[in-house]
Each structure stands twice: as C-alpha cells, then as structure tokens.
C-alpha cells in the first residue's frame, strides 16, 4: 500500500527559478489537492483537481500552476519562485467529493526553501 508519495522531500532553490513538486497516488482517487503550510496559517489550499484534466483554484493560487494529465499524478509548479513561497507543501487525495464524505489522505510533504 504505497498510498500518496511526494517528491522531493526537501528542495532548496533560488528566486526566479522554476521548480516542480511531484505528487503520486496509488489509490485512483478522483480528487487531489495541494496545500501550503505556514506558521500561524495552518494549511491553505492552493489548487485542487476533481479528475484528470479538471483543475480549479483554491485560496492562494497566485504564482502556482498545476496540471493533471493522469489520475494518479498532480504536479505543482512554481514558474518563478519567490521567497514568500518558502513553505511546506502537502498533497492530498480523496475518493469523491459529492455525497458520501471520504477523508483526505495526505502525503509527507515537501519542505521548499527559496533563497
């Protein structure tokens, strides 16, 4: 049971660089989510996806791009990284959002530092 895997676990980069965080889940869950965790803010939703090729903005989408060409993968790209995007990023997935509630399952996170 591999579950949900994020890579890399740690990343250091410089301002202005492009960086992509990977998320892979083995459950075939339809919904996937990206959150960022910052002290004093808890977790905030960046983007989410209801299915392959369907994505939508969350609370803090500016500066981020997502894609979902396959159900199991949901990469998050920072096209031109800024210091304010230094954070811990979590990917999550769930079976379905409508009707019967299923909890979201979280990866172990990617700690991203932008110098």
């Amino acid at each position, binding site marked *: 049971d591999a579950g949900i895997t994020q890579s890399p676990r740690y990343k250091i980069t410089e301002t202005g660089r492009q960086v992509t965080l990977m998320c892979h889940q083995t459950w075939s869950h339809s919904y996937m989510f990206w959150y960022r965790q910052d002290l004093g803010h*808890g*977790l905030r939703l960046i983007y989410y996806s209801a299915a392959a090729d369907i994505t939508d903005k969350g609370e803090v989408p500016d500066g981020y791009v997502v894609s979902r060409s396959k159900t199991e993968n949901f990469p998050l790209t920072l096209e031109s990284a800024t210091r304010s995007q230094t954070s811990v990023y979590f990917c999550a997935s769930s079976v379905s959002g*409508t009707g019967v*509630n299923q*909890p979201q*399952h*979280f*990866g*172990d996170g990617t700690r991203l530092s932008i110098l």
Partner: protein
Amino acid sequence: AQSVTQLDSQVPVFEEAPVELRCNYSSSVSVYLFWYVQYPNQGLQLLLKYLSGSTLVKGINGFEAEFNKSQTSFHLRKPSVHISDTAEYFCAVSGLQGAQKLVFGQGTRLTINP
C-alpha cells in the same frame, strides 16, 4: 465561506492528565468537521470526523470530540494523555457538496511533559 479558529496555539500538559483542544467554526451552511494530527516531519493523519448523527465522535488513539451546533464548536478531548500524543493538531471543516475542500484552523501544538 467557512472559517475555523483554534483558540490555543500551544497547550502544555503533564502526562496522564486530561486535555481539551478548542475549535470554533463559522459557516453559513452545514459542514463536516474533522480533527487531524501531524507528527514531526510527517503529513496529516485523520483523528476523527463528524458527518452527522451522534454529536460525540470517537476517534483513534483514545481521542473524542463533541459537536455543538449552537456554539459552533468541535472541541477535541482525551482523558489521559501520553508522551506520544505530542504533536500538532488541526481542526478543519468542509462543505457537504462538490470537492469538499478543507478549511483548516491555525493548529494547536500539544506538548506532553513527563
């Protein structure tokens, strides 16, 4: 839109003492309620959830929470804590429809002292 307020950013308690972590929410529609736990350098694990029915919900590791609709609260309790309960705890809400996106509180760091 929903919002969640966790009333304590840090809660220190002694081992085997009871603990309550407080959570209040705001929403114009019905919500689902959750408590997640985060151990150091790990992702979030679901402790318990309230969907409907009995307002007292039991979760893993001996935790329970009570949904109070009139006070819009969902406080987490444990009668006797262990050193291993040291972690960050997050209260979260979601709507009932669609993606059921989670809105999180700021988190409460629970520290258990021997």
